[in-house]
């Protein structure tokens, strides 16, 4: 695969779709949550309005250069994992720039945004942000423990890092999905998924009551706008990775959106049911069952 300029246009289109889907998914999920609480909840287009409002503030201020770079890093991280990933299996248009790297690249690119965000929040000089970062980094690295194992299991199973190849291997009936060919790895990955979605029980990072909003406390107006843009794209991009690795990928947009929604709902359902963990509790939790399951998933492959 080589690079062609038209690729940029297709990628941007994909990005635009994902961005809107992400925003709508956010509102949908919140609406569902509200309905559970017998409320009507926010409007479907509320995230869009919020975003516009954030970009239309009149005054803003900055704490320094990293304060600018943080949202940029963050969104670059989000968009990055999107553009390095094939979105629609079999579609030349929506394979993005996946020729540049493979699943390992995605795994590590996730941290690109995290790092930038943390740095910017740090420059905000706000102690609560720093506390939030400390919690966030601790928790995210803990959540990666089972994730790495589950991913390794998939790589071993397919003997490839290439997402396209992994998706290809899952074509031809849903029984070929990793979900069914390697259920333990999938369960592990889905447990790790919870940790990465910043939802209860793993939402202490943002803990609005104790450390006002956590790392992004000081971010406002257009800075917050860029971050919100990322909040729309990043979870979907991450979800797409999971879909590709565990749930057979997607051959067209509706399937992709449906799968993304279902996956997203998984964290919502869990989050609605379970109360929040403290940071060390969540780290310990990830080092228990998810870790054991992850090891099991690899052992199964090694022995079987």
């Amino acid at each position: 695969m080589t690079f062609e300029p038209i690729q940029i246009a297709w990628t941007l289109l994909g990005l635009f779709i994902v961005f809107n889907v992400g925003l709508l998914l956010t509102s949908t999920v919140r609406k569902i949550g509200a309905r559970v609480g017998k409320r009507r909840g926010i409007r479907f287009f509320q995230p869009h309005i919020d975003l516009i409002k954030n970009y239309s503030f009149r005054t803003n201020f900055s704490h320094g250069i990293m304060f600018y770079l943080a949202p940029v890093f963050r969104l670059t991280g989000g968009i990055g994992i999107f553009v390095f990933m094939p979105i629609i299996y079999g579609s030349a248009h929506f394979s993005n720039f996946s020729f540049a790297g493979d699943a390992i690249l995605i795994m590590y690119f996730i941290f690109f945004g995290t790092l930038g965000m943390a740095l910017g929040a740090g420059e905000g000089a706000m102690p609560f942000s720093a506390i939030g970062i400390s919690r966030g980094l601790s928790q995210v690295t803990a959540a990666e423990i089972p994730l790495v194992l589950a991913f390794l299991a998939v790589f071993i199973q397919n003997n490839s890092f290439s997402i396209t190849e992994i998706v290809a291997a899952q074509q031809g009936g849903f029984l070929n999905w990793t979900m069914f060919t390697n259920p333990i790895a999938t369960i592990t990955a889905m447990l790790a998924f919870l940790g990465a979605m910043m939802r209860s029980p793993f939402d202490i990072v943002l803990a609005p009551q104790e450390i006002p909003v956590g790392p992004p406390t000081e971010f406002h107006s257009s800075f917050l706008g860029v971050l919100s843009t990322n909040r729309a794209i990043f979870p979907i991009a991450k979800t797409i990775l999971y879909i590709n690795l565990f749930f057979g990928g997607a051959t067209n947009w509706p399937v992709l959106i449906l799968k993304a929604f279902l996956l997203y709902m998984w964290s919502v359902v869990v989050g609605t049911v379970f109360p929040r963990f403290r940071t060390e509790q969540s780290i310990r939790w990830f080092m228990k069952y998810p870790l054991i399951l992850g090891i099991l998933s690899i052992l199964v492959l090694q022995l079987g």
Partner: protein
Amino acid sequence: MSLKDIEKRTVIGPMGEEIEIDPLRDYYCAATPDLKMEQRKSSIPIIEKFANWARSESLWILAFGTGCGGIELRPLVTPKYDVYRFGIQIRATPRQSNVFIISGYLSVKTLKRAIRAYEQMPSPKYLLALGSCTINGGMYWDSYNTINRLDYYLPVDVYVAGCMPRPESILAGFDSLKQLIKDGKGEGAAKYAEKFEWYKKNQKQIIKDWDMPDYNW
């Protein structure tokens, strides 16, 4: 934080040199609000209108309950009233909020915090004042330590009368605020910048230990 904390002091640097610290100058940005910035509008009217609509439909309240009205805000997010429907949400940080609700009486001590929090919000920002205490002091009108008229210290966009107003009244207040913003009249922040000297004079008159810069960014 007290007056002592903004006194000048000397510290010893790593090379043994003496360093003069003037907290007000060294720790705080000295700029005051710029009227031009506060009134900045898009040159294309339709865009400004659109922006005003977005602002009015996305009101993020700063979670800061100042008096007995703080408890009246809670029902707003319950199924019965559910302000989320109207694009109203509660944020924990002033950086990300654009509505500040002064929910009841303000002691001088709280006023200082309220001023600080208000000034830390980015413009355009709106101030909703609840209860008679914010209007004329209410039942605390002759107290030695509570203010009588909020609009002498901060620019109020909408008053909601009552002692305390019920959530329905507050919802009505929000409606008025939305209309105000949509009409392009929600310019409390600009008013604050315009009459900045006057507000500061009033504030400083009653806040005797003025231990912060003139404007808190």
